[in-house]
């Protein structure tokens, strides 16, 4: 059970956390959710194993699940915003049932739709997304207390016997960069990063 309430956790910064994640990566896949989440992933340094979403809000975890099922020997990270996850909460139940141990989900929770004008989400201040994940059957679900705890939870997820969900409270800053919006190039390079095909 989660004994740490969201409000006891440090408010961190999305770009800084994304940089910390990317710095420790080798050939792991990373799926970046719509908007600021993938802007910061792009800004942290492009790698062919990154997939950047340009729409379909809420599908970062399902897309990551598909990658994890197709390549069970590769670690897959999914970065998603709280507003996005609220659109597709049912996917957590699907992931809990299939239980891929190579999937690590990160929820960037600032309680707002930052990119549309910082309006509060319907869950802000009330719903606890980590508790929802726990209740959905993701036993390895926890809030990161601070940056070091985030890195510890990321490392821990690599040894987990099931999927992991990590909640991080973040500030209201916008994304740092802007992903180049070329969907075919993003997909081709990602498939190359996944070892599925060679670039032309």
């Amino acid at each position, binding site marked *: 059970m989660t004994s740490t309430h969201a409000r006891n956790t440090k408010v961190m910064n999305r770009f800084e956390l994304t940089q910390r994640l990317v710095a420790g990566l080798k050939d792991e896949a990373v799926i970046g959710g719509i908007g600021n989440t993938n802007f910061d992933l792009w800004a942290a340094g492009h790698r062919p194993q990154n997939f950047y979403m340009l*729409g*379909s809000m809420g599908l970062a975890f*399902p897309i*990551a699940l598909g990658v994890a*099922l*197709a390549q069970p020997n590769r670690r897959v990270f999914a970065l998603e915003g709280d507003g996005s996850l609220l659109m597709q909460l049912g996917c957590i139940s699907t992931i809990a049932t299939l239980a891929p141990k190579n999937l690590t989900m990160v929820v960037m929770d600032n309680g707002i739709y930052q990119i549309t004008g910082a309006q509060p989400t319907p869950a802000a201040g009330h719903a606890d997304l980590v508790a929802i994940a726990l209740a959905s059957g993701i036993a390895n679900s926890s809030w990161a207390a601070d940056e070091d705890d985030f890195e510890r939870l990321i490392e821990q997820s690599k040894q987990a016997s099931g999927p992991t969900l990590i909640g991080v409270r973040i500030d209201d800053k916008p994304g740092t960069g802007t992903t180049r919006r070329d*969907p075919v190039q993003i*997909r081709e390079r990602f498939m190359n990063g*996944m070892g599925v095909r060679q670039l032309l």
Partner: protein
Amino acid sequence: MAAAEQASSKDKGQSATSWHGIVLQTLKRNEIKLVPYVPDRVLTTLIKDLHADPYFNTFPTAREEEAVGIVSGAWMAGMRGAVLMQTSGFATLANVLASLAVPYQIPLIMFVSERGTLGEFNYGQALVCRTMRPVLDSLAMEHHTITRLDELEFIADRSIKQAVTTQAPVALILSPLLTGGKTFDK
């Protein structure tokens, strides 16, 4: 109950003479292993047979767009998939088709059990059915309505191959003329 449906329940759907047996074998022949779905009464035997066959990784999702996300991710990582749904489920997909499958050129393969026509008893289903083909046409997406058992394998097999080679999504609409559909007494 349609003749094809009756034939299938006897031979567990594996027969090449039932519509769902043909769909299953066509999926297998095209190396489509991953089959997430949101269920439909008409798809019951197909779903049961997919679960019974260890070749397939098949499971329910909470929403159709979730299933589209899953097979899209899987395809980019080297595993082929297809999504099963009914008409009203397709109606939830315009956003993911327009922002993921079409622009990223992903060969999304969808089997849609058609409700809302040829004996529909629910007005809401009849109305939502009318949105399906205009949405597909508005995105210039390939789609076929399969009405005849003798054309099913040709259409499904060729359409899957075309989707993969042209990297374009396709919707295969399973008409009540093929499946028997869902009627008021069921």
